[in-house]
């Protein structure tokens, strides 16, 4: 073996473990605000992801243990689970996870080779294919008369008790849904915001979830597992785009703080857009990538067919990564300080 003969104590497993740790505050707040159903979703997604990962590794002739213990499949599973509606049926969770691991990850070449973020591919497939089931969000516990217990949540998710009546009793439109529906009914933003689902900045409870994801994200930044460029540019893109629209017509466009404090934005900014494999690598490229994703999120939320646009925004930016990287190659040591043609 040639030099160097020593290594820093870091590993892919360690990086992934920190990402999972940083999601814990968010999961805790999730349980607190929406009830324990998310734990069922997380477990099911994790089990499916590990099984699919092991099967695909075996099928592709890779050693199972070193790749299964890198924890990357669990990160994908958790990110997808946290993006799904909290009372999504079991087959939705399994389908999304399988698509993420089998198609978006392994059919693209496995760890490090996927162009698109696997969790977001899984999410996009589900929202395009099963738009109705993708709205089964439990309302915040504070607004629900009889919140579901863990067992009740499980029976809803696994379909033992998923009659329309049960679901109607516990599900509720998300704040973004409410905003979208309200705007379609020609209500003004101020009128819509009087609904009980809205809190101080974002949705009631949702804003706390967003804050918890923000906290976890700051932890990842403090540990230098993620760099500041992508989250900051992403949030700036959201804030500037939403602020611009809101400034011109506050009646038709939500406030920038409202858009910023959606959980999907914080999860997207700190945990999904920062996925190194599918993101830009150069410092300037990361800024462009993050800003573009933020901008597209607001465009999709405002004019697109879906209430939220984080997933599609990130997938679209994933597509642009090779171009962004090629055009933003930084100046190297000793290179003249001038603008440079991109390498062909």
């Amino acid at each position, binding site marked *: 073996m040639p030099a160097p003969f020593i*290594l820093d104590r870091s590993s*892919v497993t360690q990086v992934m473990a920190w990402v999972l740790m940083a999601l814990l505050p968010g999961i805790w707040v999730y349980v607190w605000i929406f009830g324990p159903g998310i734990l069922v979703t997380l477990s099911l997604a994790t089990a499916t992801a590990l099984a699919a990962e092991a099967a695909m590794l075996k099928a592709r002739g890779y050693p199972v243990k070193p790749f299964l213990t890198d924890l990357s499949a669990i990160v994908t599973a958790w990110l997808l689970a946290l993006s799904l509606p909290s009372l999504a049926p079991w087959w939705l969770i399994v389908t999304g996870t399988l698509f993420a691991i089998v198609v978006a990850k392994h059919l693209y070449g496995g760890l490090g080779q996927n162009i698109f973020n696997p969790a977001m591919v899984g999410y996009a497939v589900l929202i395009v294919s099963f738009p109705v089931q993708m709205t089964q969000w439990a309302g915040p516990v504070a607004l629900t008369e009889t919140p579901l217990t863990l067992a009740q949540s499980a029976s809803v998710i696994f379909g033992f008790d998923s009659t329309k009546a049960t679901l109607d009793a516990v599900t509720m439109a998300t704040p973004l849904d409410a905003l979208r529906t309200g705007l379609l009914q020609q209500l003004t933003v101020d009128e819509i915001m009087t609904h009980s689902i809205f809190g101080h900045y974002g949705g009631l409870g949702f804003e706390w979830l967003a804050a918890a994801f923000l906290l976890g994200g700051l932890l990842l930044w403090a540990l230098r597992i993620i760099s500041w460029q992508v989250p900051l540019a992403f949030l700036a893109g959201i804030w500037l785009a939403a602020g611009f629209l809101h400034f011109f017509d506050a009646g038709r466009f939500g406030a920038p703080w409202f858009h910023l404090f959606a959980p999907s934005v914080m999860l997207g900014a700190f945990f999904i857009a920062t996925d190194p494999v599918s993101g830009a690598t150069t410092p300037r490229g990361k800024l462009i990538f993050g800003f573009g994703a933020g901008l597209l999120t607001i465009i999709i939320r405002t004019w697109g067919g879906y209430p939220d646009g984080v997933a599609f925004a990130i997938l679209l930016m994933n597509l642009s990564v090779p171009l962004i990287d090629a055009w933003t190659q930084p100046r190297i040591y000793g290179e003249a300080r001038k603008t440079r043609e991109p390498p062909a």
Partner: protein
Amino acid sequence: MSRTLHTFKGGVHPPGHKTESNSRPVHAALLPNKLVIPMRQHMGNPAKPTVKVGDRVLKGQLIGEADGYISAAVHASSSGIVTAIDLQQVPHVSGLPDLCITIETDGRDEWIDHGALDYQAMALSDLRMKLRDMGIAGLGGAVFPSAVKLDPGAHAIPTLIINGGECEPWITCDDVLMRTHAEEIMQGVAVMRHLLGSTEIIVGIEENKPEAIAAMKTAATRLDFTVEVVAVPAIYPGGGAKQMIETLTGKQVPSGKLSTDIGIQVFNVGTAHALARAVHHGEPLISRLVTVTGHVLRPQNIVALIGTPIHALIEIAGDRDGATGVLMGGPMMGVPMPGQDVPVIKATNCLLVKSKDLFPPLPRALPCIRCTRCADACPAELQPQELFRFAKANEFGRAQEYHLFDCIECGCCSYVCPSHIPLVDFYRYAKSEIWAREKDKRASDLARERHEFRQFRLEREKKEKAEKLAAKAQAKRAEITADPTASGAPDADAKKALIAAALARAQAKKADIIPRNTDHLAPDTRHVIEEIEARRAKIRELAHQPLETDEKKP
């Protein structure tokens, strides 16, 4: 004296492991029974042996002379008999043998006549040639012949930097040398200043060597010129020449250029010491300080004669069971030794004995996840993850566009990689492939030119032959039509006449050939010859190019 320090991008902080070896006193040189002295110890052309098997040589005697400008001489490290001039295993990663002179020492350690040079009275170019003939080369690692670096040429070198960075973990030979020989180092610096005409002299030492900094500062106060001794942050590879320049001056050496292009020259402290020994004592470079550390009982620094087998040094430091190999150099850039019989050479700054505990086998590499920690750590400010991708895919053109050849192979990227990819290995592979392909391309271009020329020549010969035959046939036909009797009744007279005519033709032809066949020719024949000559000239012109390239090839 406070200097504004600058920071270079990247770098890592591996554990230093300096105290193991820098706390013991320096061990004096030992005299082995046999010295194996390679002719290729420096950059540039290897030295040419000047002794024969059976010759008695004295300590310090020239045994290999410098071959050309970028070269350095090689000397006997002790007195004895030359017993072999042949290929021996040398401290190179390839394990391939190289030309060495073997000296059976006689134990008398008898010096040649030597004494101080009156260097201030010498012409600068004479002094430089003298240093080349005393074998002075950079002891920091690259072993570049110092005489070349001490020639400012067309450049002005206002800034002279003396590098005492020694950022590689485990190595302490420069540290110990500065603690013990600060004054001699400064004497060497004075000679460098004399040769380069520098006005600003800075010694950069990493701040983890307080004793060395103190010793050098004290030595600096005794000089009649100003030397600034500066403590720089301890960060790997802060002791790299380009990094030291940026830390001390804030300037970057332009990509593809030399530091002299921006008026700066850098020498290692060991080189300054060797220079002082050469100038003030007339001693050629026949020994150096070597750190022997790692998995040994008594890690320490040892003065070693060039040519001493490395096992002799490891025995002094106390070899232990469980050694898993020896590195020449440190853990970041060191080279694994093919065995313990290889000799100490001018480049040997450290012998690092490995063990399973100190250097556990590297974990299995996982795929790159593009986390860009390598890019954050790269002091050349490259994008190692992209270079890796291109090297792995054999896309060498792209790798070069992404500045592969600006990589200094410091190993920072591999060190931080969470996927444990031996990145530097991929860059070395890509570089060697590119070199090999360029060589192949030159060779195949040459072969193609030769082949095309041969085809051309064969074609030409064929055509010439055909033309000759055609001309002959035409001449014959003309003759026959001019002489109707030839085709008429075949009577005896006509036959005779024909024979006579043929004879006359043969006579005439003979007469033509004997003087010079270019005289007295029919205009059409002359025309044909002129055409042939013109083609020949063209061929010569075509042939000229490949032949010249051929000669230029080494």
